[in-house]
C-alpha cells in the first residue's frame, strides 16, 4: 500500500528566509512524487513532480524538491520565502508500476511572516 506522511501540520517562516516542508513516502515499487499547493477556497495547484532522473526537481514559483531514495523523502524547499507563499501544501505519491490515483498527505500549512 502507498502512503505519505507530512510530519508538520504547520510551518512558520520569516519572509526572505529559506523554507522546507517535509514529506516522506512509502510505496512497494518506484515512486511518482508530486507537490501541490492549495490557496483558500481553491482547488489544488500542481507545483512539481519527480519521476526519474535528477534528484533535485524545480517547479513553479521558485519551489524545488529533493528526492532522497534512501530516506524515502521528498522535501519541498524554497531559498527565500514570500508572504504570498502562505498556503496549504500537499505531498502525493503513486507507485510507478501501479494503476491507482495519487495518495495525498494530510497537508502542511505554511505561514510566511513579514
Amino acid at each position, binding site marked *: 500500500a502507498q502512503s505519505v506522511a507530512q510530519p508538520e*501540520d504547520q510551518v512558520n517562516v520569516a519572509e526572505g528566509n529559506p523554507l522546507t516542508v517535509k514529506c516522506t513516502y512509502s510505496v512497494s515499487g518506484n515512486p*511518482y512524487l*508530486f507537490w*501541490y499547493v492549495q490557496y483558500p*477556497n*481553491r*482547488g*489544488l*495547484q*500542481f507545483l512539481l*513532480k519527480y*519521476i526519474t532522473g535528477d534528484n533535485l526537481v524545480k517547479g513553479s514559483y521558485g519551489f524545488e524538491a529533493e528526492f532522497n531514495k534512501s530516506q524515502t523523502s521528498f522535501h519541498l524547499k524554497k531559498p527565500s520565502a514570500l508572504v504570498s507563499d502562505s498556503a496549504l501544501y*500537499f505531498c502525493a505519491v*503513486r*507507485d510507478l*508500476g*501501479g*494503476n*491507482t*490515483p*495519487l*495518495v*495525498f*498527505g*494530510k*497537508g502542511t500549512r505554511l505561514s510566511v511572516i513579514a
Partner: protein
Amino acid sequence: GAGVSQSPSNKVTEKGKDVELRCDPISGHTALYWYRQSLGQGLEFLIYFQGNSAPDKSGLPSDRFSAERTGGSVSTLTIQRTQQEDSAVYLCASSLLPSGTGNQPQHFGDGTRLSIL
C-alpha cells in the same frame, strides 16, 4: 478558462436530503477523480474513472455515495440521505493520461463546499 469546473461551489442542505455534485473535466482528459477534503484530514480518495474501464469505487465510504461519468466527460457525484459527517469540500480532478501508465499531474477544480445542517 479551460480548467476543471465544479458546480455548485457551495451547497447547504438538510440532513436526509440527496445532493448531486457536478464536475466538468478538462477537455480530452481521460481520467477523472473525486476526492473529499475534511478539515484536518487531507484528501480522501473516493472514486476514479479511467476511460471506458470500470470505475475504481474502492474509496466510497458507504453505499449512499455513487458517481457516474456520462459520455466520458461530465461526472456527477450523488450522496443520498445526507448525514452531518458528509459535510466537507468535494474536489474533482482530471488528468491527460490514465493513472499508472503516465506521469501527468492531476488538475483540480475549486471544489464544492457541502454543508449538512
